[in-house]
């Protein structure tokens, strides 16, 4: 009688074990790919289809996961700590520096060589974000340049030419406000998104206020130049009242919405506003124009913050297949299809496609020129983990908002920012 329950229990355990064992069959090859979810859904669809086709070609299945600009580092942080990075990772402009420094990315120099053969030489300003110690740790995918959007109809009404300087933007904004056309025409948010820190870098660099030398070593924020730069842009909030304080709390799409609602005349943004206006046959499309971000006394040194790169983390078990997948996605036909389906958002970083006829139109020329003149994060040095943290810690935009919101002097704000930058570089010295 006592033996029966034991027998039943033993049999149940054996059956459960047998059921749980994987069946004897050929293992399916599965790859994971993480990519940015952009503001251009048709381009995302093309990329996903390309990835699936390429995976089939190499006899694999690819599982695609997406992230937005806002939650990218939440996702990657968890994966870094748990050592579960995907087989193929699309990283932003600071991702390769951070992960390569951790030893978590494979050397893909040969892969870059393969891509170069089909797409041409890599643009020199794209190397700083992916090449460290003479080796490539990511393959540049595309760049999203930040350009200056403006309302040409409003400029015409106040008799102004498109501005080429930061001061010019101020003057025209004041005219638009005075004419009663808009209450707050100047939509530069200086907030904790790319629409804030990208123009902040462009502004400081255009005034000669870079804080590193060519090797990436910290040399200090040139105080006079930084103060001069701040004093040009903060009056929009403080005295001219051509910017609204609410702009400082915008999310990443806040300026897009305000521009398309006809509330602002100037704003920095990627080309996605053009897609949104084109795809919805927006009434403001005919009045929307773009130009390169302004220059300053030290020239036009534009930040190229939004650069997406393909990397092959060492966590992945299928290194060979992952590299094959990237090579296929970056092949000429596939990348050209993606580029031409991106509504001018995905700017290539390899020479042959930069000169493609696709960009041979008024807007395309501005976009391409912006990328060609763009400087990587960490300029004039390479992109380092310290440079990455200066951006992600919002040091530059906090400097602006200390003046605008907390009403500290520009000199004090610059001093605080410099102290923070120094502390970052002391903690993360360039290798």
């Amino acid at each position, binding site marked *: 009688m006592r033996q029966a329950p034991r027998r039943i229990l033993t049999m149940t355990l054996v059956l459960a074990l047998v059921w749980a064992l994987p069946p004897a069959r050929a293992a399916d090859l599965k790859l994971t790919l993480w990519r940015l979810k952009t503001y251009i859904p048709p381009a995302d669809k093309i990329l996903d289809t390309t990835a699936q086709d390429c995976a089939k070609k190499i006899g694999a299945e690819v599982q695609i996961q997406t992230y937005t600009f806002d939650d990218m580092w939440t996702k990657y942080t968890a994966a870094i700590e748990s050592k579960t990075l995907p087989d193929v990772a699309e990283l932003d402009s600071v991702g390769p520096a951070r992960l390569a420094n951790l030893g978590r990315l494979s050397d893909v120099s040969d892969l870059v060589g393969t891509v170069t053969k089909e797409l041409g030489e890599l643009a020199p300003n794209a190397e700083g974000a992916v090449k460290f110690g003479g080796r490539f740790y990511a393959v540049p995918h595309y760049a999203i340049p930040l350009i200056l959007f403006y309302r040409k109809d409003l400029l015409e009404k106040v008799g102004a030419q498109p501005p080429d300087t930061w001061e010019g933007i101020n003057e025209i904004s004041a005219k638009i406000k005075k004419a009663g056309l808009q209450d707050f025409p100047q939509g530069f948010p200086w907030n904790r998104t790319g629409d804030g820190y990208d123009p902040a870098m462009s502004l400081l660099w255009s005034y000669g206020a870079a804080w590193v030398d060519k090797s990436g070593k910290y040399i200090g924020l040139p105080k006079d130049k930084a103060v001069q730069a701040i004093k040009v842009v903060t009056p929009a909030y403080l005295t001219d009242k051509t910017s609204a304080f609410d702009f400082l709390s915008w999310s990443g799409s806040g300026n897009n919405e305000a521009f398309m609602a006809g509330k602002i005349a100037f704003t920095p943004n990627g080309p996605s506003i053009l897609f949104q206006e084109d795809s919805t046959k927006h009434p403001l499309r005919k009045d929307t124009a773009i130009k390169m971000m302004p220059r300053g006394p030290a020239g036009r040194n534009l930040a190229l913050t939004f650069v997406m790169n393909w990397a092959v983390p060492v966590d992945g078990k299928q290194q060979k297949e992952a590299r094959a997948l990237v090579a296929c996605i970056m092949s000429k036909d596939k990348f050209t299809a993606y580029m031409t389906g991106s509504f001018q958002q995905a700017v290539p970083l390899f020479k042959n496609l930069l000169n493609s006829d696709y960009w041979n139109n008024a807007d395309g020329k501005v976009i391409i020129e912006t990328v060609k003149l763009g400087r990587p994060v960490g300029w004039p040095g390479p992109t380092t983990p310290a440079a990455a943290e200066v951006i992600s810690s919002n040091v530059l935009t906090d400097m602006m908002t*200390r003046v605008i919101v907390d009403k500290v002097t520009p000199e004090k704000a610059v001093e605080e920012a410099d102290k923070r930058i120094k502390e970052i570089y002391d903690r993360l010295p360039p290798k």
Partner: protein
Amino acid sequence: MSKILAQPAAAAPRARALAWHRVNRVQERLLGYALIIPIALLILLLIAYPFFNAIWLSLTEKMVGYPAHFVGLRNYVALWESARFRIVAWNSVVYTVGSIGAKVVIGLAMAAALQKAARGNQLLRGFLLLPWVIPTVVIALTWRWLLDLYRGLVNVGLHDLGIIGSGIHWLGNPDLAMLSVIMANVWRGFPFFGVSFLAAMQTVPQDLYDAASVDGASAWQQFWRISLPSIKGVVAIVTLLSTIWTLNDFNIVYIMTRGGPGAATHIFATYSYELGIQSQRWGMAMAASMYSLPVIALLIVFVVRYLHREESAS
């Protein structure tokens, strides 16, 4: 002789009974442990381990992907010396005190109003619970839209009524931004207060109110001298719980203002997120979030002692 022979025979059943009771008690104890082990494991793995790990990390210079190095209280000192963190700490106090104060007042008013049995009260109670059941993300996004400078219902409504000439910078003015996030927090949380206070009020004997009415006490006097003292314990517990939740709040501030403008609405949770995820500085991020721990611990001790005192007095 028979008595001597009879004793061992009588003692055997008693001894067996005693032994059976001992075994039974041991088995009961073992069963008790077996039943609480699953929940104890869950608490250990999901609460205790992360909690103590967070304390450990706060004492290290841990960056994402790198091993942790013990640095003692350096993170805490660095935070305290940072002007920005002091702003964050002050914001957290303002946000918490402002939200809790408003929720207590509104919750008491709601409970007092609903206490009287009236037609439609059940429907009204259900309706007033809605903010509590709607996901916080939806609430935050809705308030963000309501308070938008150009298209928000509040500004558009006030403008159309002729009360304002141009939009109010609800999310841009530092003081108004703090008020805005407090409003959203209060709107989300007041039903919890109201329903809890109402449940407590309904246990107060009606005789007390009848006697007070006979003595000529007004509604306000009845509320102040009967209802409120009777529900002090519940008020204390609900306030304590909500204080803990509010000090750790993240969603509302992050979605509405991202801690801006500047650092005007940055609180412990959003600042900790910025340090931990964007700057990848886990040690510092944990230290920032641990700053509220002593306050919470003190509050818990205070409330528990108060409740014990009240219980002893009654």
